[in-house]
């Protein structure tokens, strides 16, 4: 304990409550409140309603939820496969090459998302690689942006893995493929699940690259939230944001449980 006096501690806790309340709690609370607001002319809404949720779910929001979930799932699955593959095969490289390639796999996380989208538009707007205007370009954009996070998570997991199990398996004569499938990947499972969850969450909230490349008919949740608020429909925007938040948190909590079970068994 750093501060021994009771009054000193109370002052610090009050400061914490103030900063936490203003910066973190108030925004979440006010989004929830406004998604339920009927009339709002004064400090607080004068009536509450669930009509905004009904409106957005009957409108195009159902499609937006589907577009976000499908994009997030496919992009995260591809990022998981390629990130795990890259992290595992980097271990077979020499020291210098491993460092260089490791850096290159991280670089997509450093480039602004809008520029990633711009690059895809410039590169894939002409045959033979015509992706512009298709759903695939959205998936590719999301894959590029989240691939570094999956790679990083899996690499961190591999670094923490004790090499003993793999060495024992090899000395018992297990072939590399058998060892990978029955020893290394099960040991990595909690990290794989965590990596998948984080990249899914990032994909659900992705806006910068998506607004650059999305085709009509594949509008993700963040894009449709922006178009709602941009034309002044802020309450519907808030309702759709709550749907996005709840979907993201449910996904993360669910996957956390899966990860706990995977590491427990």
């Amino acid at each position, binding site marked *: *304990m*750093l*501060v021994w006096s009771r009054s000193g*501690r109370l002052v610090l*806790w009050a*400061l*914490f409550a103030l*900063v*936490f309340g203003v*910066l*973190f709690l108030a*925004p979440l609370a*006010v*989004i929830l409140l406004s998604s339920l607001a009927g009339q709002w*002319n*004064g*400090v607080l809404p004068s009536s509450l309603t669930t009509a905004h949720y009904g409106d957005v779910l009957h409108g195009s929001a159902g499609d937006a939820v589907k577009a976000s979930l499908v994009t997030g799932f496919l992009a995260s699955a591809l990022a998981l496969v*390629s*990130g795990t*593959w890259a992290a595992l*095969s980097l271990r*077979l*490289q020499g020291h210098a090459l491993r460092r260089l*390639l490791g850096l*290159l796999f*991280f*670089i*997509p996380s*450093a*480039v*602004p*998302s*809008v*520029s*990633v989208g*711009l*690059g*895809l*538009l*410039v*590169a894939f707007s002409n045959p033979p690689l015509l992706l512009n205007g298709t759903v695939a370009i959205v998936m590719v954009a999301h894959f*590029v942006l989240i*691939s570094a996070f999956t790679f990083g998570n899996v690499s961190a997991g591999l670094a923490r893995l004790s090499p003993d199990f793999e060495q024992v398996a090899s*000395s018992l*004569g297990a072939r590399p493929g058998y060892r990978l499938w029955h020893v290394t990947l099960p040991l990595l499972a909690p990290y794989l699940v965590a990596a998948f969850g984080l990249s899914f*969450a*990032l994909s*659900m*909230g*992705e*806006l*910068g690259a998506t*607004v*650059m490349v999305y085709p009509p008919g594949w509008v993700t949740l*963040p894009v449709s*939230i*922006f178009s709602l*608020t941009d034309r002044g429909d802020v309450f519907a925007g808030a309702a759709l944001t709550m749907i996005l*938040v709840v979907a993201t948190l449910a996904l*993360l909590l669910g996957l956390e449980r899966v990860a706990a079970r995977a590491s427990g068994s």
Partner: protein
Amino acid sequence: MSEAAVIGARPARVETGKFWILPPAALLALLFFYPLALIARQAFFDDSGMANVAEVTRVLHSRFFLNALINTVSISVAATAGCLIVGLVLALILAFVPFPGSRFVARLIDTFIALPTFLVTLAFTFLYGSAGMLNAGLMEAFSLPLPPVNFLYSSWGVVLAEVTVYTPFILRPLLAAFSLVDRGQIEAASVLGARPLRIVRQVILPAAIPALIAGGSLCLLLTVNEFGIVLFIGAKGVITLPLLIYGKAIQESQYQVACIIAVINIALSLGLFGLYRFAAGRLGA
């Protein structure tokens, strides 16, 4: 027998093993590095393959580009400073003056990393916007004719939103660093009569410096790249480089101008990424 099998298998595996990296590397090269190279080509060469210095210099000297560059850098520096101060204060209290439920609160702040950044901007328009709760309250209380609080539609609105969104990125490494600080050392110092501020300065801060540098450089990178917050605030005067690229490419269809600005933005980001890797590498993280 098994030993012989391992010895026999090893050299062969190392040789073919080197090629396993090719599929993911090729995928990344095609989908990321190739488009990046095309941005550079479109920026510096025209359709006939001639270098076009005139257009590049025109954009780099234009008012819209310089304004966006100054906005981006100043917002990023201000937001990072804010994140460092808020993150340090919150982490000090969470780690050294804990209260019932402080672990839960730390996890709650951590989940902000997974939430979309524009959520905070949208919330701020309800809180501090011209028809928001704060202005409505002040106008009712003092019977003012006009909303008195207008910071949201300036750079300060963006800075405050970015402080909320990116403070968790400082908090996480700080809490990890603080968990390694020897509690006995702090107790001994305070029994010997050292005041809390002195303990913070002489014992705790030295342990936090690497986490502050790594977290701060990550914040600089993320705030330079931030798009959603600036787009949602939608203030005419607050245009940053990513927003300018979006505007030029999508709204004005000037792809070449967008590519020139993108080259500068990417160079700035990669420089900050190098700084972050250097800082994180020195820390051993």
